[in-house]
C-alpha cells in the first residue's frame, strides 16, 4: 500500500462488499436483497477501477448494475405481492449453510494467508493497456486474440434471447 488514500479507498470498498454481501443474503425482504446486491456489484466495479481496468469496471456497471439488477427487480415485481416477507428458515438448513460456508471460507482463508503473500505488495505497474489495444485484442485472431470466444459468446447471447423468450412466453 503506497498511500493512505488508497488504504482508505480499499477499506471503504472492502467494508461495502462485506456488509452488503451479508445483508443481501440475510434480509427478509427480497427487494432489499436485490438492492444490496446492486451495492456489492458497484463496489466490485470500484475494485476493477482500482486495478486500472476501466473498461471492465464500466462493463460491470452497465451489464450487472444496469441490466441484471433491473431484471431481478422486474422478476421480483412479477412474482411477489407487495410487502411479502421471505418465509422463516428451518434451523437445520441454517446450520447446514453455516457449516458449508464456514468450512469453505476457513479452508480458502488458510490457503490465502498461507500462500498468497503477494496480496500485501504494491500494485505492479501496467504499461500500454489502452482501450484501443483491448479492442484490437478482442477482435484479433493472433496469439492473445479473443475473436473465437467473442463470437461464441455472441452466439450464446443470441441463444439466450431466443431461449428466454421461448421459456417465459405464455402458451
Amino acid at each position, binding site marked *: 500500500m503506497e498511500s493512505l488514500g488508497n488504504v482508505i479507498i480499499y477499506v471503504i470498498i472492502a467494508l461495502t462488499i462485506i456488509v452488503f454481501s451479508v445483508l443481501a443474503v440475510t434480509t427478509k425482504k427480497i427487494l432489499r436483497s436485490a438492492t444490496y446486491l446492486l451495492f456489492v456489484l458497484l463496489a466490485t466495479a470500484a475494485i476493477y477501477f*482500482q486495478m486500472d481496468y476501466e473498461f471492465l469496471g464500466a462493463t460491470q456497471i452497465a451489464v450487472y448494475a444496469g441490466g*441484471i439488477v433491473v431484471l431481478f427487480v422486474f422478476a421480483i415485481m412479477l412474482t411477489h405481492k407487495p410487502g411479502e416477507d421471505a418465509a422463516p428458515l428451518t434451523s437445520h438448513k441454517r446450520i447446514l449453510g453455516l457449516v458449508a460456508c464456514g468450512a469453505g471460507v476457513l479452508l480458502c482463508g488458510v490457503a490465502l494467508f498461507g500462500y498468497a503473500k503477494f496480496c500485501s505488495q504494491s500494485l505492479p505497474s501496467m504499461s500500454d493497456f489502452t482501450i484501443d489495444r483491448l479492442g484490437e485484442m478482442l477482435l484479433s485472431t493472433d496469439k492473445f486474440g479473443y475473436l473465437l*470466444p467473442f463470437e461464441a459468446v455472441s452466439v450464446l447471447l443470441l441463444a439466450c434471447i431466443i431461449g428466454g423468450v421461448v421459456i417465459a412466453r405464455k402458451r
Partner: protein
Amino acid sequence: MYLIPSLIMFGCGVYGFITRKNMIAILISLELMLNSVDINFVVFNRYLFPAQHEGMFFTLFAIAIAAAETAVAIAIIINVYRLAKNVDINQITKMKF
C-alpha cells in the same frame, strides 16, 4: 488484499444459496458467488501477470455469460411461477429420481 472481501462475498453466496427459499434470492446468491470469482480472476491477473490480460478477458466473458444465464434463469423462474403460483424452491421437487 482484495481477495479478503472476495472470499467473504463467496461465503455469503454459499450461505444464501443453501438457506434461501425464494428462487430469486437463490439467484442473487449465485450472482454474489460469480462476482467473487470474477474479482479473483482480475486480482490474480493484475498482481501476478501484469503484462498479460487473460484474467481480465475471462472476467469480461464471464460477465456476458452471467448476464445470459441470469436472463434464462429468470425466464424459467417466471414460467415456474406461472405453473406453481409460487417461487419456493422446496415446492419444486417434481424432477427427483
